[in-house]
């Protein structure tokens, strides 16, 4: 077993894990942060996307031990301090950018990563950036609109219904 400690959503946490334990399993099973989901076993679907030291990472493709000492952010830490939805979360609700909700945490985390590096993406930028996040429900149309809206752009001008 390996001892580790890290910061998750601004709070210090620690645990004992097997060497083979994935970061996503540490988050879900040890910390009970079940908002980060597992949708595949080949690092393709992106449902497990979190931020590690400010960078979007598929937490199924990283060992928990590799995150020792890191600053990790998950979907549970994204809302505003008063509990209200942040700009990205609100845009997803406003534009019906989610249905079953399973891929949604990963989509929100991937979007935050995109907008951090590209504050005003166009439609092609959004689609390209989200290629590692699979959604089976929405057909992506409303996700694209939500991301554009979260960036403060005029959605209707670029993506009419």
């Amino acid at each position: 077993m390996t001892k580790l400690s890290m910061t998750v959503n601004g709070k210090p946490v620690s645990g004992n894990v097997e060497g083979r334990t994935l970061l996503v399993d540490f988050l879900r099973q040890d910390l009970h942060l079940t908002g980060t989901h597992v949708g595949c076993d080949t690092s393709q679907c992106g449902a497990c996307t979190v931020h590690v030291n400010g960078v979007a990472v598929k937490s199924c493709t990283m060992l928990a031990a590799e995150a020792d000492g890191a600053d990790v952010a998950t979907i549970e830490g994204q809302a505003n301090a008063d509990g209200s939805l942040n700009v990205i979360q609100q845009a997803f609700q406003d534009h019906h950018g989610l249905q079953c909700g399973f891929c949604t945490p990963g989509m929100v985390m991937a979007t935050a990563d995109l907008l951090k590096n590209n504050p005003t993406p166009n439609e092609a930028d959004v689609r390209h950036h989200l290629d590692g996040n699979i959604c089976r429900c929405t057909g992506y149309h409303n996700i694209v609109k939500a991301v554009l809206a979260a960036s403060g752009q005029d959605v209707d001008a670029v993506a009419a219904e």
Partner: protein
Amino acid sequence: MPKDSGIGASPKRREDIRFLTGLGQYTDDISLTGETHAVFARSQVANGIIKSIDTSAAENMPGVLAVFTGDDFVDVGGNPAGWLINSRDGEPMKEPKRPVLAHGKVRHVGDAYAAVIAETAEQARDAAEAIEADIDEQPAVVDMKSALAGGALVHDEIGTNQCFDWGWIEDNRAATDAAIKSAPHVTTLELVNNRLVPNAMEPRASTGVFDPGTGDYTLYTTSQNPHLTRLLICAFVLGIPENKLRVVAPDVGGGFGSKIYHYGEEALVLSAAKKLGRPVRWTASRSESFLTDAHGRDHVTKIEIACEKDGTFLAFRTETMANVGAYLSNFSTATPTFLHGTLMAGNYTVPTLYVNVKAVFTNTAPVDAYRGAGRPEATYSLERAIDKCAQELGMDPLALRRKNFIKPDQFPYAAAAGLEYDTGNYHALVDKLEELADLSGFEARRAATKATGKLRGIGVNTYIEACGIAPSNLVGVLGSRVGLYDAATVRVNATGNISVMVGAHSHGQGHETAFPQVVADMLGIDEGSIDIVHGDTSKIPFGMGTYGSRSLAVCGSAVVRATEKIINKAKKIAAHMMEASEQDVEFSEGQFSIAGTDKSVGFGDVALKAYIPHNFPIEDIEPGLEETAFYDPANFTYPAGAYACEVEVDPDTGKVTIDRFTAVDDFGNVINPMIVTGQVHGGLAQGIGQALLENCTYDENGQILSASFMDYAMPRASDLPLYTVDHSCQTPCTHNPLGVKGCGEAGAIGSPPAVVNAVINALHSGGHTDVTHIDMPVSPARVWAAMNS
């Protein structure tokens, strides 16, 4: 001015808050005290005789609590097919037993033959790998034509790989054959409806719990229909009394059909929980999902259209081989028959048709209903063949369709495939499509594309579907072993807020938002004070669940009926409160009043009176305000639509890019336009995925070649366009109280032929007029090969 609440409004979805903040509770998110973990040992061969299974090493591994094999379940029942199909000669279909764990033989890659229960999932996984199974591999049955020709068998005991040989409508066969024989023109097309994997993003998961103190079981599971799962486990598989099993389907991450069915893993975790006295959890990996979830489609069809030289349809005839896989999944026999053959008339006034379907066992995963379920297969065959027919006749494809449409004044219309369509206006749908898709501007766009060295094509088609599944009397005659009604309870609490317990299950459809819109409209109260309860057999009266675009049409109708009962009882209470005759009480906007007087009481006051029945006519009216209704539809509903797809084809690579997609649908009345539009988007993505990307393939040994997201091409954001969606052409359903038809499957049903029609059209514009068909998925390799053959 759009409404901001009630029917026709688009309030934001209330369930989104928990999903967006990581607070959803999916089955694998639930941890229970003392829980253990199950992992399955699965066959690596497609067809094999189990000679021995040595579990001794696994049993002695760290943390292992129990190991189960097929021997442990020989005395329990099999997982049944829910629909009895008789062959043309009257023989009932073949129904080999589908056991909890394989016994004697394994019949597809992934077929589970043992399960390990351990303290941790990792320990269970390690131990499952230590099970030594001696399995004698047999020749695999994969290709349907070979399967029917004889040779290796999937089920030795039934002596054939043919499940049934079904004809529809048998009485029309001779007339259809004669019409085709003498027709001035016959179009023939052979096509494959490619096998798909549903791939809900949440893999299947089940946790079994047994309480030795009460003898009660609880199953948390990823189900679209918890009551149906309970019925199958109790009445057919494990024999648990229904009142001793609670099935909970909490938040479920998509289903698309694959979570309708009962699977052996559910029975295993319940049995193991009883044996160990501890909860037993199992969650599928995505690889297991590919191997064991029920797949979809997989038809091989020959279709013939007989017509006059002017395009007037005279007869349709189809012969289909439908793959059912290694075992019969619960709806697998209904999907290629009564959800397929009955739709073969399409939107048309064809006088006669005949459908023959041979269902075939193969050493592949079971195949069952996947979004659309039979109706996409019918639509694809017919609408591809009509396009080919139009080309052969030199007619415009939309003109050929218009010529044969059922006209608006012909409804209700008894179609040649045996269903009576209640309402529709297909001409209006096509008119709207021409406008929204800017069909008149196509040639200019084609010219612009040509200047870039690419080929632009346009494909159109219409569709009809039968939804709101289903009238129990009718489906009973057709072989269904269950009824297909639904139920709802409306519970008005003393303080006036309301819980509505519904049999439908929401796994992305937004019921928690849409159903309160209906009740709020009827009661004239704030929809924020109305909550939907679903997915728990201990909380809801009964329910057949969510599939077949049925939730609002069937369960929503039950909600309406239960709410009507609430209003009727509340009127009695209000009459007493106002010292008036019940007949004089009027109800509007949440207020009960007496016409011509200033007397009135609010809905909340009546609710309080019902629960604090002081000065209450207790001899005439029971206290409380709670009503239940079961609703069984009088007919299917018949959504219809007209779709147009524009593609660009790169002649150098064969790559197809969708530039525009327009979907015009008639869903009858619409409760929440935002949610309906989202449902269409999702359906379109799955239909376009089928047409361009997705393909589940097995090699000749029955090894699945597409068992991960690295091998199976799921549609991704960059594969798809922005869609143009319209549902303003509304011909309300005449036989349910909301006038709704259902919208969940339309996009997946209507879109594949539009895409393929567009690709063929593009190739013809580039001079490749000899290319009459390309099977789905229309991949770059297939398109390039067609252009260069």
